[in-house]
């Protein structure tokens, strides 16, 4: 146990002397209040410590004690539905014990020490095990079967393994190491947050993470195990997009990290998720969710740790063979925390005051995503998808955090303030967003949704691009200068924008659209385009086509119930056919 004395206090940075024997990144306890901190620089016998709590009242001479262990998280049953702060302290339990405001120096174990879980062994006496093998399972809640795994770096044979109700720290069995020593097995293990959990092999992602969000699934899909970022100025709906992904993505688990954002947003998740049902399991969405909340008014250093805490928990579930999504809102606040600590350490700043290691830190974070073959002899596969919001200052994406992120992630959903002003939500700009997974996922979509899927979605992008070009012309010379075909093309683009891309997150049916229905909606729009082209060729007037009554019905297609929409879509198609046929005949008569 290394003990030192404080020399300097400057906000969240504390310098202590007498720390020569401490390790880098050791967790230390600071002052009488036992504030939690972490050593980030060692110089001679002086350690610079970032403190995860408010440092008011700390002064020279106060003692600093190293715990000798790096910042770690507790992994085991009880993680799900919980809400933690940036260093995995359970906020709900802290509220019950200490009231509505966050006090300092609180030690509260992350996993409930009293609660008992029913453990069912999968192995028996004498079985030899190695890292990643599954000792047995705990049905944590209605949705998630929690697999108790042999921790990485462990190898041996089972001496004892019992079925029964256990607390997380109780002995469920014993393991004998190759050197003959025997150790107890518990439901809980620990892992240092700054170290990626090992896996056997990384695989290229080939399945989409279906989100039910039309603009994402159809135009800019993300793969399971992929990475994406959502930059946008304030008010462009970043948080709503993130919440939608957390709610509707077809993953087994979601870890939602509220990093330096609003307190009320976390409360919203906390209050709303338990009442939503997961379309896949039919159970409450909260049951598959872990929340990490380090809101903007909470200490800035813990914000830096929060993304690591979140992704480590996600990796743990990935290792069980689940598909997990980590959603971080917002990585810019995390970068700002880095910047603040870097400034206090008096490091030479890089761009806009951010430290020079910003890019490598971001890359390390996103590289922890991926589709992997997990450790363990059964060769199970897990996936971890990482989605980060970015809050560029002034909405200017040329700033360092956005640019560093774009170099790493494969999907870019660029939010656009001007779309948001027009209340076009989700305000994902279709002209500058991209997904590098489109081609890789083509096979899956053609096989599981429809052969036409890739054609339709590519056609959407083409029409929208053409619209942007045509709009330029309209701005210069007016609508009348366009040919009827071009005006139809504008009309179709409008239909794609309004009837397909716009999706209201707050309306029951519209908030989630299954892929088949998305395909059906596109089918309607292009069916309309074909027929209208036909009618125009026969001499029908474009103004008459604009004012066809079926257009309103097409606009309401998105609100057709998800189970019975086919009938409605067929009826709309019949209307399109009849009404355009009429126009065509009338035109031919003239």
């Amino acid at each position, binding site marked *: 146990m290394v003990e030192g004395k404080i020399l*300097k*206090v*400057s*906000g969240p940075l504390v310098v202590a002397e007498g720390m020569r024997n401490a390790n880098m990144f050791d967790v230390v306890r600071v002052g009488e209040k036992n504030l939690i901190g972490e050593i980030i620089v060692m110089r001679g016998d002086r350690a610079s410590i970032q403190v995860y709590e*408010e*440092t*008011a*009242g*700390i*002064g*020279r*001479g106060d003692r600093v004690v190293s715990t000798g262990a790096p910042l770690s998280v507790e992994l085991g049953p009880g993680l799900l539905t919980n809400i933690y702060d940036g260093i995995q302290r359970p*906020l*709900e339990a*802290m*509220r019950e014990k200490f*009231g*509505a*405001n*966050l006090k300092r120096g609180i030690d509260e174990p992350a996993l409930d020490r009293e609660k008992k879980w029913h453990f069912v062994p999968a192995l028996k006496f004498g079985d030899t095990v190695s890292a990643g093998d599954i000792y047995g399972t705990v049905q944590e809640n209605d949705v998630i079967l929690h697999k108790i795994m042999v921790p990485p770096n462990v190898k041996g044979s089972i001496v004892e393994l019992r079925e029964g109700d256990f607390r997380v720290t109780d002995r469920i069995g014993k393991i004998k190491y190759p050197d003959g020593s025997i150790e107890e097995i518990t439901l809980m293990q620990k892992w240092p947050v700054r170290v990626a959990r090992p896996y056997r092999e990384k695989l290229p992602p080939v399945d989409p993470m279906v989100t039910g969000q039309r603009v994402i699934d159809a135009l800019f899909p993300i793969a399971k195990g992929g990475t994406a970022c959502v930059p946008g*100025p*304030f*008010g462009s709906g970043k*948080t709503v997009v993130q919440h939608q992904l957390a709610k509707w993505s077809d993953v087994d688990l979601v870890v939602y990290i509220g990093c*330096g954002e*609003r*307190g*009320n947003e*976390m*409360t919203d998740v*906390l*209050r709303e998720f338990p009442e939503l049902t997961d379309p896949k399991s039919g159970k409450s969405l909260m049951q598959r969710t872990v929340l990490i*909340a380090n*809101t*903007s*008014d*909470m*200490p*800035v250093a813990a914000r830096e740790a929060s993304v690591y805490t979140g992704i480590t928990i996600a990796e743990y579930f990935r290792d069980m063979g689940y598909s997990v999504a980590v959603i971080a809102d917002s990585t810019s606040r995390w970068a*700002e925390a880095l*910047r*603040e600590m870097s*400034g206090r350490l008096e490091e030479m700043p890089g761009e*806009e*005051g951010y430290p020079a290691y910003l890019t490598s830190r971001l890359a390390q974070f996103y590289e922890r995503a991926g589709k992997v073959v997990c450790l363990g002899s059964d060769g199970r596969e897990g996936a971890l998808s990482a989605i980060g919001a970015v809050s560029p*200052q*002034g*909405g*200017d994406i040329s700033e360092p955090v956005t640019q560093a992120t774009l170099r790493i992630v494969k999907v870019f959903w660029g939010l656009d303030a001007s779309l*948001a002003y*027009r*209340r076009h939500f989700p305000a994902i700009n279709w002209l500058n967003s991209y997904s590098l997974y489109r081609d890789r996922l083509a096979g899956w979509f053609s096989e599981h949704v429809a052969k036409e899927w890739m054609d339709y979605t590519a056609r959407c992008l083409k029409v929208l691009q053409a619209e942007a070009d045509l709009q330029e012309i309209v*701005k210069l010379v*007016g*609508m*009348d200068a366009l040919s009827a075909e071009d005006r139809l093309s504008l009309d179709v683009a409008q239909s794609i924008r309004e009837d397909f891309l716009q999706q209201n997150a*707050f309306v029951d049916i519209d908030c989630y659209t299954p892929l088949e229905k998305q395909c059906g909606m596109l089918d309607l729009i292009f069916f309309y385009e074909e027929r209208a082209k036909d009618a125009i060729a026969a001499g029908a007037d474009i103004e008459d086509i604009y004012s066809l*009554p079926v257009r*309103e019905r097409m*606009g309401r297609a998105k609100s057709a119930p998800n189970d019975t929409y086919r009938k409605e879509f067929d009826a709309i198609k019949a209307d399109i056919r009849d009404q355009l046929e009429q126009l065509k005949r009338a035109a031919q008569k003239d």
Partner: protein
Amino acid sequence: MIREYRTIEEVAGPLMLVKQVEGVKYDELGEIELPNGERRRCRVLEVNGRNVLVQLFESSAGINLAQSKVRFLGHGVELPVSQNMLGRVFNGMGELIDGGARILPEKSLDINGTPINPAARYYPSEFIQTGISTIDGLNTLVRGQKLPIFSGSGLPHANLAAQIARQAKVKNKNDKFAVVFAAIGITFEEADFFISDFKKTGAIDRTVLFINLASDAAIERISTPRMALTAAEYLAFECDMHVLVIMTDITNYAEALREVSSARKEVPGRRGYPGYLYTDLATMYERAGRKMGSEGSITMIPILTMPEDDKTHPIPDLTGYITEGQIILSRELYRKGYLPPVDVLPSLSRLKDKGIGEGKTREDHANTMNQLFSAYARGKEAKELMVVLGESALSSIDRLYAKFADAFEAEYINQGFYENRSIEETLDLGWKLLSILPKGEMKRIKPELLEKYWPKSQA
């Protein structure tokens, strides 16, 4: 044990270096005694060995290195609070300046507060009727929200804030209501406008004022909003009152912060503001809200003037990232004489969806709101096109949209500072304006609602 030091080594701008101190803590409050007996306050910014760097809250004029004394008081900056603060006027450091009787405090609270546990917050969802159509109808304010007004020099943000303070009420409820007003570096005239408006309407009796005028020490501005918020927290969370906090002008606050930062020679972020401006602002704004164990709430309306009307300037930008929306004022509308000149399209209330609808306002609220937004946006686009190409270039439907946009500005936005519209009046007016357009354009309104509310005479 409180010791006195005569070891002031350096005074530069708002900072002072004291040497050879013992047992001084970070963020501790200090008191400087000048040779003439005058006392000023300061706060510890950094402890470095036996040296401490302190930040003055007042001017440094008259501080004498040889003869001034410093005492450290063993606690942070505190504000004595009591219910009797209502109706009283304080300076930016929390001292009474209205010449009235002293207040016997209930207790003293640290002005920095402590963060609210996110698990202990209630999600704000109670509709506040401000009587202003552009806010109630389109950017609804709810209890516990923080909704700033982004303004520019010369725009009537003060009138709008006063109108909100005057008219705000929660539907069908008679709760205890209070206003906490923090003037941060504003002119005497502006402060006087608020005070006389509060007096005229009788609101002064339920108002606590913290006044730091442009002529007061700039550095005092750093503590002024925190004083006000501490008073607000006491009234809201310990006396169960619903508190509306108006803070003006946050731009002055941020500049005071920049002054300290540059005096400390910190690496600046954008435009010379410190890199921690976001975090610093957040620790103030996040004190708004509702929390478990208390009936009260803090609803916050910070006002800031955007330099050059530039929304991407760090102060409005970072504010927008923290607050739950923003009300933006428009110079164009103001020039047209439309009051209050709320720029509807870029304004936003993030919490509106939870505060409106049946049982809160009216069932048609959400649908008409979306329809009004998109119709106004399209109308404005049509008008822009009209400027370039002339009216004849517009399709007949776009001409209707242009007409709608004009009527919307003239009637819906332009209600004046003294008209108080109920939410029903606002919604009905919305329907009346929408009926300028053909019924078939109402794609964002559910058919049932359209049947029920579409004005009959036009149909």
